[in-house]
């Protein structure tokens, strides 16, 4: 498929209309000078990726993305930022010393994911086929049955990992005071 053939498909215009803002927003998340702006660009990137899921007929996944990530995770981010520090305007100390190792790690994750998807797609017949995007969306019931029948063990495993991460997060963030320190805190 040549580029002119590719661009002639209206589905691909929709893809570009969502993918380009998504990439730009994703870049602005890490380059933005204001931490609240960065979180808001994350909303834009997530909304665009929800749009991409709709384009792939995965309606349920798209709305899960909106409900969980935009409606809960980013709201918690913003809540956390605003309750601790939320200056209006530019900030200068946002960049981290470890940004180059972080960039290498991100590229590594990208390479592995790309390789994995490519390998799976090659095994299943390649990317060349047009997407069944205009047709009926994937039935939510089929997804649900998949979760509790065929993929029950991976599903539970992921749930277990998330629970462990939650407990780990609480353990790391929480600092139990000794009775003496508590008294100190109460007096201050």
């Amino acid at each position, binding site marked *: 498929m040549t580029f002119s053939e590719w661009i002639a498909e209206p589905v691909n215009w929709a893809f570009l209309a969502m993918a380009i803002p998504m990439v730009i927003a994703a870049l602005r998340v890490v380059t933005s000078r204001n931490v609240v702006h960065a979180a808001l660009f994350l*909303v834009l990137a997530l909304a665009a990726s929800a749009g991409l899921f709709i384009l792939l007929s995965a*309606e349920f996944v798209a709305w899960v993305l909106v*409900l969980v990530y*935009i*409606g809960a995770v980013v*709201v918690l981010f913003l809540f956390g930022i*605003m309750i601790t520090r*939320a200056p*209006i305007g530019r900030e200068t100390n946002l960049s981290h010393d470890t940004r180059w190792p972080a960039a290498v790690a991100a590229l590594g994750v990208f390479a592995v994911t790309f390789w994995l998807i490519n390998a799976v797609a090659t095994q299943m017949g390649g990317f060349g086929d047009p997407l069944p995007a205009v047709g009926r969306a994937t039935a939510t019931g089929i997804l649900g049955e998949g979760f509790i029948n065929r993929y029950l063990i991976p599903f539970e495993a992921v749930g277990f990992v998330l629970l462990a991460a939650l407990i780990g997060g609480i353990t790391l963030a929480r600092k139990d005071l000794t009775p003496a320190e508590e008294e100190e805190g109460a007096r201050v």
Partner: protein
Amino acid sequence: MSLELTFWWLLAIKLAVAAAVVPVIGMVIGYAEMKLSAHMQSRVGPYFAGGRFGWAQLIADGVKFIQKEDIIPEEADRPVFKWAPALVMLGTMALLVIVPVHPSPRYGIVRDLEVGIFYALAISSVSTIGVLMAGWSSANKYSMIGGLRAAGQLIAYELPLVLATVGVVIQAGTMSMQGIVSAQVAQGWPFLLTQFIGFAIFMIATLAELTRLPFDMPIAESELVMGYVTEYSGFRFLFFFLAEFANMFSMSVIAATLFLGGYGLWGINPETLFSPIILFAKVGILIFLMIWLRWTLPRLREDQLQTLAWKWLIPIAIVNIIATAVLKVVL
């Protein structure tokens, strides 16, 4: 080609209708709220505008808001400040897409999505971002505290809202709004009879999501001026104002559809044009209930609000889901 043109025209017409519906609903409910609250407090309420009963009061108010200067505070974060009301309005208008007024898809602006109710809950949560943006970008302490309170409240009540609908989804066996209504029409009784716990939780959580009394800490006038809307004026304030009333309407539509049988009523064929009237009558009752509660209950304290959500509503909703699922399998 002609088919494509019709599609775009249809889309344009539907968008125009959706855009017109929000201000009309806002004016009708706003007027109802003014009059009802006045009579509940032994006042008269608006009586001058329009000759009798002050029926044109809200039109006059709308014209006033449009004329007002659009003030943006000096210290405000301009783009975020400007986009916040638009985002709140987006969450509101997108909800109107799935209102099921009639079994036939020819009437109304209905798109019967397979994920129906889930879409409604997801898209309404986008408004929270708009509220937080408004609170932060105003560069005002009252706005900031209002925005934070709103976020804490909306996070806490999002969960009971979603969990309360699950019981109905289990009973109906579908998430589509039309599917839920036709399940109730087919069995002849509304899900209210079995899901009254879910209904109660849904209505409480809805009041909290709408930040109306007794859950209006985010905009409490006596403590925070108007919370996150303090710095807004003119047209942008109008957006917040209309969004609240339009959200009251769409949340009432969802409650009426899920629990009260939507456009179905005993002995009336749902295929007739009575269907929208029946639905809107049920919605009217729910809106009256919301206004009634607002003007007769005192405001909760912040800790009471969080206790209610996390310690009472969420556990009860989960028990309700488990009981419904068990009974669905057993019966």
